[in-house]
């Protein structure tokens, strides 16, 4: 950590990491540890959850989808929160790295959303006898996927990176308002017309045998997310530098 990151009163200046070279230094130091942690947690978690847990009496072996489904669904939602905060900081404080974090997070979030939907469908088939129902939780995660797709498309459509960053940030903030609204709109529509909603809240009344490996898997997924995010942001910063060099040459 360079001296510019420490303020006169000894506190770490968080905003100094908005400087791309400071960010590159810190993220370069963190990346191997985060990656190693992700690999370790996922190896232990997957091994434990697949071979070390008993089949549930009502779900059979299918219960083991839980260990992939729940962490990816958590990340599907929380990645959008991260993007919202990053976009807000990017718009207010005009920090380029903040925009890049939101940009790099979007495809990862979309990926986890797709994993959550696919694993949910695979679990739904043996569990409820159907791949898909228009249940509130399923629908809201599908809406999340639409928002990710729109956000990624916005970035890809505009050539000028500064303009693209600003437009995408506005879209992300507008999208988060509507994502919340959709979340509750869907709830309303589902409770009126779905009858008894299928409960997906297994993690709240989950037995201890599943709880510990699930926690390890969640930790693994989060570490994996951070590792992918750091790689993504570092790639973006390098791409920016290449672009700047090309422009300087031309």
């Amino acid at each position, binding site marked *: 950590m360079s001296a510019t990151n420490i303020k006169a009163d000894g506190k770490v200046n968080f905003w100094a990491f908005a400087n791309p070279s400071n960010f590159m230094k810190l993220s370069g130091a963190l990346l191997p540890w985060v990656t190693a942690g992700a690999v370790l947690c996922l190896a232990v978690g997957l091994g434990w959850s697949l071979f070390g847990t008993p089949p549930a009496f009502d779900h059979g072996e299918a219960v083991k989808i839980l260990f992939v489904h729940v962490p990816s669904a958590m990340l599907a939602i929380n990645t959008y929160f991260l993007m919202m905060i990053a976009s807000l900081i990017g718009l207010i404080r005009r920090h380029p790295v903040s925009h890049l974090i939101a940009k790099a997070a979007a495809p990862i979030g979309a990926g986890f959303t797709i994993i959550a939907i696919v694993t949910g469908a695979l679990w739904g088939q043996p569990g409820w006898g159907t791949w898909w129902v228009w249940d509130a939780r399923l629908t809201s995660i599908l809406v999340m996927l639409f928002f990710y797709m729109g956000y990624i498309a*916005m970035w890809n*459509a505009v050539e000028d990176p500064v303009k693209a960053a*600003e437009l995408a940030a*506005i879209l992300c903030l*507008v999208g988060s308002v*509507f994502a919340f*609204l*959709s979340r509750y709109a869907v709830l309303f529509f589902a409770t009126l017309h779905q009858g008894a909603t299928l409960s997906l809240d297994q993690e709240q009344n989950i037995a201890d045998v599943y709880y510990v490996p699930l926690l390890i898997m969640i930790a693994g997924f989060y570490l994996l997310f951070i590792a992918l995010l750091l790689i993504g942001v570092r790639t973006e910063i390098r791409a920016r530098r290449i672009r700047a060099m090309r422009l300087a040459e031309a």
Partner: protein
Amino acid sequence: MSALFWRDVALSFRIGGGAGQSLAFFVLAVSLLAFGLGGETDLLARLAPGALWVFALLACLLSLDRLFQADYEDGSLDLILLGPIPVESAVIAKTAAHWLTTGLPLALASPILAVMLNLPIEAWGALVGSLLIGTPALSLIGSIGAALTVGVRRGGLLLSLLVLPLYIPTLIFGALAVRAAALDQDVTGPFMLLVGVTLGCAALSPFASAAALRANLS
């Protein structure tokens, strides 16, 4: 502000303005649904609340590229932004003109389409009412998408990709109101929610659209 409003309304009725096109699209799309389903009246009646709302929404969406695009291309959008009124007010004026030339005709014509789809007569009032209340929200949300994509060449598909997810709550509440009316249920709940969505959009979307326009034209 009112000058801008009347200018946009007048422009949309001139040649190339495209007023009435979204209405024609609405009528055609509804007829296509009937053709596709083979004209089974019970089936159509059950589908009518959702289908009418979805097609009204699509008709509104297809007209959104006109909102800022033409003015952007001939440079008058720059002048509007540099002009004496705040960008937010300009957005409100242009969005209001858009609603007057697309949303309002759709709402007023909807009973004719309700007849074609065999929607129960009890639901007609709810259909017109929900469209009258809901289509301003469609125009307002659409203005955000139109402002975001104004600089993008052939941004039509991108515009729909951005705007359609934002339309989900409006669609759910609007269609719910009509469906409830068709089933002879209480419609106050969905109507209140729809009014809430529209008012919320009216409060927030001019700022988002203006921010997007400023970013695009800076």
